[in-house]
């Protein structure tokens, strides 16, 4: 059986080779154990308080090297997980808080909230950035960040993360320099810029926290994940890390869990800032050649003045259809200014209307009800004023197809300019 022997040889061959090395190189890596780091203070080193360390920086703008073998230790109270705090780590002990400036992101992975860390100060520098004392490395003759690669040479973690120290409850007037770099909590405060986002898209933004009398800056980064969330109405408490810029105290929240209480029940139904375009609104010209036009600076603007003359116009700026079937207590607010017209005609030529049966096109074919505008501008300058909260009549609640519209009138004898922005329709969800 020659063919049998051939087949047998082939099988032997096909089996031998893999068998030679089967146990060879295929790797299954051992999973590393959970590492519980224990920090041991090196011989000859001593721990000083954060306050004692910061006190070494006495001259504003100076760069102070730290040459003796000292450590500070504290608990991490900041987190860059949401991106609001950036390349900064705040630790605090009972004496105070310290800002550590680091050229690295996602610090929360290595130095999470509640983590005790030791900072080897020898070789680092103390300085201040616009008055805020921090520890770091030199940059252009002033204090800068510790290079990302070098962080592990100066920051040492001790044990697993534990509890975050309770934020110190303060009132705005009683905030002291000693609170800088620590976690503080303000109670019974409100936001002045309700319904504006925490930060504009283009840059870090200051908003105002008020206790009714005193104010404090809330500074948020445009890279924060909650950047676009709107500041809530009502009052509540705000926790954050306290910073300083020049003479301005600034509070940084870690995430939205730091903003507690407040009135979250009212929801935004429609938010049209007119910041980039006419957005969801529609401009309809009933009479006259001039129309509502968009301006990046002024929002939606309408004027019958053209070619050096006043022109008769009727022009509507109509909202998209809004569904109010699940809302009550619906309120409209916007910002506007009116100028160059006869002030006495201002409240008849610039009016707000609402409809339950408008669909599209010519507004005069639908039924409209006038809604009084509560706050008008002076009519004689370009200052924008807030309309305040204009309540929509209760009859509109539960309606599926509600439009509201801004109606502009001018004549050949006078034509004002009306500018509109920041339209916000809010309501309470049923």
């Amino acid at each position, binding site marked *: 059986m*020659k*063919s049998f022997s*051939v087949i047998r*040889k*082939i099988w032997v*061959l*096909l089996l*031998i*080779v*893999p068998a*030679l*090395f089967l146990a*060879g*190189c*295929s*790797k299954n*890596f*051992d*999973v*590393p*154990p*959970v*590492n519980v780091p224990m920090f041991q203070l090196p011989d000859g080193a001593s721990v000083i308080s954060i306050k004692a360390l910061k006190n070494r920086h006495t001259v504003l703008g100076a760069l102070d090297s730290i040459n003796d073998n000292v450590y500070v230790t504290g608990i991490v109270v900041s987190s860059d*997980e949401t991106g609001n705090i950036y390349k900064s780590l705040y630790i605090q002990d009972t004496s105070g808080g310290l800002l550590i400036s680091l*050229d*690295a*992101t*996602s610090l929360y*992975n*290595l130095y*999470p909230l509640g983590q005790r860390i030791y900072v080897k100060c020898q070789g680092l520098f103390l300085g201040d950035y616009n008055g805020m004392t921090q520890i770091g*490395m*030199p*940059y*252009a003759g002033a204090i*800068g960040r*510790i*290079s*990302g*690669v*070098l962080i592990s*040479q100066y920051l040492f973690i001790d044990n*697993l*993360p534990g509890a975050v120290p309770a934020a110190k409850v303060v009132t705005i007037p009683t905030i002291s320099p000693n609170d800088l770099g620590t976690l503080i909590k303000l109670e019974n405060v409100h936001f002045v810029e309700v319904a504006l986002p925490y930060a504009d898209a283009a840059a870090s933004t200051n908003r105002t926290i008020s206790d009714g009398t005193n104010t404090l800056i809330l500074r948020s980064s445009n890279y924060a*994940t909650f*950047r*676009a969330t709107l500041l809530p109405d009502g009052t509540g408490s705000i926790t954050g890390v306290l910073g300083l810029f020049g003479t301005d105290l600034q509070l940084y929240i870690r995430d939205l869990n730091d903003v507690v209480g407040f009135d979250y029940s009212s929801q935004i139904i429609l938010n049209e800032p007119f910041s980039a375009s006419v957005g969801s609104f529609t401009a309809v010209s009933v009479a006259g050649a001039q129309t509502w036009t968009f301006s990046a600076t002024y929002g939606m603007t309408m004027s019958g003045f053209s070619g050096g003359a006043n022109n008769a116009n009727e022009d509507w700026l109509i909202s998209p259809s809004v569904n109010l079937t699940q809302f009550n207590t619906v309120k409209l607010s916007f910002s506007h200014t009116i100028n160059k017209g006869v002030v006495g005609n201002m409240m008849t030529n610039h009016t707000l209307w609402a409809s339950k049966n408008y669909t599209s096109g010519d507004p005069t074919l639908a039924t409209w009800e006038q809604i009084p505008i509560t706050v008008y501008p002076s009519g004689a300058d370009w200052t924008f004023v807030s309309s305040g909260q204009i309540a929509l009549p209760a009859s509109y609640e539960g309606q599926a197809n509600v439009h509201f519209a801004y109606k502009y009138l001018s004549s050949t004898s006078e034509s004002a300019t009306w500018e509109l922005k920041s339209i916000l329709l809010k309501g309470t969800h049923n």
Partner: protein
Amino acid sequence: MKKTLLLLLLVFFATSWLSAQTASLEGVVTDITGSPMAGVSVNVGNKTYVTDAAGKFSATGVSYGKTEVTFVMDGYETKTMSVDVNSAAMKLGYVQVKSAAAATENPTETSVSTIESEDEVKDQYVSGLLHSANDPFVSIASYTLSAGYFRPRGYDNEYSEVMISGLALNDPETGRPNFSDWGGLNDATHYKESSYGLNPTRYSFGTLSGTSDIDVRASHQRKQIKASYAFSNRTYQHRVMVTYSTGMMKNGWAVTASASTRQGSNGYVKGTFYDAYAYFLSVEKKINSKHSISFTGFGSPAKRGMQAAATQEVYDMLGDNYYNPNWGYQNGEIRNSKVRNSHEPVLLLSHFYDISDKIKLTTTLGYSFGRSGTTALNWFNSADPRPDYYRYLPSWLDNMGYLNGISGDPQSIEAVTSLWQNDQNVRQINWDQLYQTNYLNVLSGKQTRYVVEEKVMNHSQLGLASHLNYEINKNIFFSGGLNINIYKSNNYKVMNDMLDGNGQTGYWLDIDQFSQRDFLGDSNKAQNDLNNPNRIIKKGDKFGYDYDIHINSGNLWGLGEFTYNHLDFYVGLKLTGTQFWRVGNMKNGRYPEESYGASAKHSFCDYAAKAGATYKITGRHYVVLNLAYSTMAPSFSDVYLAPRVRNAVLPDINTRKIFSGDLSYIIRYPKFNARITAFNTNFYDDTKVIYYYMDAAGATGLKESFVNYFVTGIDKKHQGIEIGLEVKIIPVLSVVAGGSIGNYRYTNRPNAYITYESGLLPDSSQQIYCKNFFVSGSPQTAGSLGLKFGPMKYWYANINANLFASNWVDFAPNRRTTDAFTNTHLYVGDPALTAITDPKLANANPQFTLDVSVSKSFKIKNVYIGINLSCSNVLNNTKMITSGYEQARTDFYTYGADAFPAKYYYGFGRTYFLMASVRL
């Protein structure tokens, strides 16, 4: 095109009057025992024939007068005889070739190297593909110069073709041959019939660069049992290979089986490993004198740890041009983050039909399938784990202050440099820390931060190839064929390792974190699959993207060879139809309307024509001219804007056009053999795609995000001269020399089409200022001078001195645009500008290497024993850049022109390959 046709017709008519005065030449090749030898290459004049199972060859169109006939067979001494052709039907009778005892398998089996483009791992095997017997230049180019990444005429691999029994094994997506499919099967895939350049073949229309047909027929394999062991310090350390061939048995069956393994825990480059097996079985049954059926199946499952390129800053800092950022220690063991894992078996069923003495039909039905994947680290809202991320390098301390003219703190720079040099956890991936980060996040209920994912391609391909060879009369030989190919690949990511453990189980959310950032508050946009929103991914789950590529193609070709006394010529034509489309298996949140389901089908019709002539001045002097014009459908990836996420394609789809010609003078004497060739190839409307992270600040109106960047309408010119010669000084000593001087350049200013993968901004376009830039991918000038000794008492030796020059780095097209300079502080005459505008990118100083190999074989009774030792780059030149690319990422405005420098690969220093084999 009209010109080409006209030329073809002219060639045809101008020569048809020539009288038919040529001879045929027949013979049978046997070994010293008189057994017929199949698969021996027989070179007659400038043509190559291969002996059949009976050892028979028959050459046609042989000129009268003295002609060299050379017999080449691996493991046998090459035999050259001078024949005086003086009758119309010359018979050589039996020609014996002497066994070189045990195999002198070419010892410089080219190293397998990896080239990695940004974020994409591509395998590029440099192979002995173009081995064309008896051409000194081709032999030097494939075996000696390929170590320096030399590619003849600067052509990409997609312009070469590798077949088995007439069925092309090129990947329909890339057009490149899948050399890794038969890796480790050197014994079984050894016999090839190859043609170089545009020269005609009888099993394929041919390509620009050359075609090889691997002969795997069991009846053509030498009857033997062979085992070999090789030890090397290149990509693997150990190779064991066993091959068994029955030869044609009396019952009409022939069987060849081969198996091998290649193993290495650490290659020449640290952190690379090799864990590969290979198997091969070929069975042939001769049904009768006219029909033979052959079945062949093979596969090469392989796992390999990959290398990545790094910047010169890192190499210089570490004093090591072989630094590999892909690995790090986990629990004290080396772990590579980029592991390529592939197994793509091929099954072939062939029918060989000798219709008559003059007509042969070869038909092969092939099926291949399998998977190939490459792992990589991925991370969520965490620091980049790659050790050589630009912000972790000393140069970052300077670059970050560029905009404000602030240089870095010298002490910090020194400290960072020192850590790089002394701390493994800074220099390499810190796996333990990645685990630790995951533990802490999983403990607090958060998503796993670091994972290892694998980008996988599963493919299946059915191919049918049939070709006919018909000797119409003694002057006319017709070859023609038909190919049909149906291809599908499924592309997706799979979770390979969650980097968790110790009782904790992590999870991963299937969302795109860049879209989450770019489309803040829009929870749909960030979804990778709207059909399964916010899906929780565990180990083994598919995620990220999942789509199919379908490519169907077919072609018809014909080639006529006309042979006369002083003139041979050929004309050929090929028509190709290609159709491809995408099928999305996920509904992507960025493109809900155009990601799920099938895209439109895109069809292309291409043609190719070629013609050439050989003028036989005498039987020793030839002038050869080849011309070819072809159109080529764009590849799938040249057309789809973002195939991972959407169905859309480029608004203007271009078909490539290639016009090529070469003119050679060939001299063949018993002791002197030379060829000189001038070549010129023009490429028109080529496309190149890059995928990179676009930095924002400098260029107005752009945003930070991933972009797909299509450079379209690229025109290139490859021109140069090739020389190869071999001089036999004494019977056992020859001088072999070969080299090429090339000038491969871009000849226009193409346009780029830019599309944001996430659709963040509308598509835009740019003009690329790259006219006269050099084409990368190969040294444009290379040469080798060698001495070939042997056989003398079964000793062989080779020594080769090699020179490589003008190897240019792949330039980043987006750096050559006006947008890249918008608002920058760069000024005319700025030294930093030179680096951007100079077409001679990077240092391409001539590099010199020396290779030596020695082999000896013994015969003890019936057992042949062979020992080969080859040492490449004996002088240990570690300064030779073999390839490199500029990073596409730039931000000239913020960080200056030098912030994202080019990355390089260096050719290996001194390596050796020692092999012992036993054959009976």
